[in-house]
């Protein structure tokens, strides 16, 4: 696995991460404590880390993906859910 840092776009900002970093981590690295809003408007973020709880859902290149199970890739566009 290469160690060259890569750059992806998170909520409109360029974020630099090490390869092997998940999108969930990238969101936190970009300064977000909450990555999703619950149906009643409460802030939420990743809980189970293993693709079960669905709290880390985000838009990755236009499609809904689980942040904890998606590795950052160069040029990836990530938008947290409204």
């Amino acid at each position, binding site marked *: 696995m290469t160690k060259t840092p890569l750059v992806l776009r998170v909520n409109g900002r360029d974020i630099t991460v090490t390869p092997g970093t998940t999108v969930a981590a990238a969101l936190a*690295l970009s300064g977000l404590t*909450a*990555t999703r809003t619950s149906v009643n408007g409460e*802030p*939420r973020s990743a*809980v189970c880390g*293993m693709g079960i709880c*669905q709290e880390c859902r985000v838009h990755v290149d236009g*499609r809904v993906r689980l942040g904890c199970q998606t*590795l950052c890739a160069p040029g990836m566009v990530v938008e947290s859910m409204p």
Partner: protein
Amino acid sequence: MSASIKSAPLVATLDSCEVLIVGAGPAGLSAAKAAASGGARVIVLDDNPAEGGQIWRRGAHADLPASAIALQQAVRACDAIRIVNSAKVVGILDAQTLLVETPEGALKVRWQKLIVCTGARERLLPFPGWTLPGVSGAGGLQALIKGGMPVQGQRVVVAGSGPLLFAVAATARKAGAKVLMVAEQASLARLTAFARKLPLWPSKLLQAVQLRDASYRTSSVVWSVQGQGRVQQVTLKQGNRMTTLECDRVAVGYGLVPNTGLAEALGCTLHLQDGVSAVTVNTQQQTTVPHIYAAGECTGVGGCERAQAQGSIAGYCAIGELGKARKQEKDRAYWSAFAVHANSAFVLDEELKSLPDAATLVCRCEDVSHGALLGHTNWTEAKIHTRCGMGACQGKVCGTAAQFLYGWQMPEARLPFTPARVGTLACAGGAPPDTNRVEP
């Protein structure tokens, strides 16, 4: 709906193999190595971006034992084994075909022998404040840290139950977090009984000594978490004392629950073990369905070493190498005994059922509270009327909690076993999809 989304192709690709293995954790990787040892064509499906499952999760901050790395490399190097990462099993198309989704598209896999190694998930129990950002599972935090989650300088309380808590605390510290406390709900008496027999498993004793933690407290439970939009304080109940600590993260998990959904949907018999369902297997790791085997945590929580032994046995038995399988039985028995011992120590206290108050959410996806659920008598009725379990997690989190809190049995899973694109399900049929107008 945006028309500019990059499209996944609308036809499933087809693949077939002699041995299909679902899950690339310790059990699945061991099974793959054994099954391919005679040259059989093996496919391994795993829903994470890289092999390893939970305990051997790779990532920017992972630190794997040499044996784990060696096994993964051996599996990768083997030409007879095809590993499909980020692959989620979505449905069962017929007795020998699974429908799988990857980020790239849909896949139909035909198999002759199937080995289910779907592992276990963490039991997340509700308590006031558990939905605040900064609260995660204990294994959940470990997984997130291995994926690069920054915890440098953060004050963390690790809590819940099980030997996993030690490893989580160690991972957190290594990543620069300040672990304020490791709060184990089991009593000192249970932990002492557990520790007393550890010399029977010297490597576990060594692990325990290496991971020992001055901040470890028994009979300690996270009672509530407070904060404005994120974790700021945690209140712990320790015996009869309540303590409140300022902190940034609370990582709390109450043991592991076997992932039996796929096996059950395949028709495999399950049995109750330590209060939860596990896949029933015989000495050859066969389930009650012909040609289907199971190994690892999905057959009952038993730890990584037992999973490897079970996986090897399953893999060898699947290709008819019963002699080679038998050689692993001593290991399996040794680690099975440890599993029984560990599970008995970390039984969950009934007190945990009174953690949630009426306003505490039980269903996180649909924001359904404990109070709203109390009036119902079973899962299906509660779901129909309150929406509990109708969200994206498909009841995997709230259903596990409801089983513990209310004794509700969960129904069998239906396709899709995990959220999957409509386009993937549209590939489930025999004929290729026709997106043109079909004449009436």
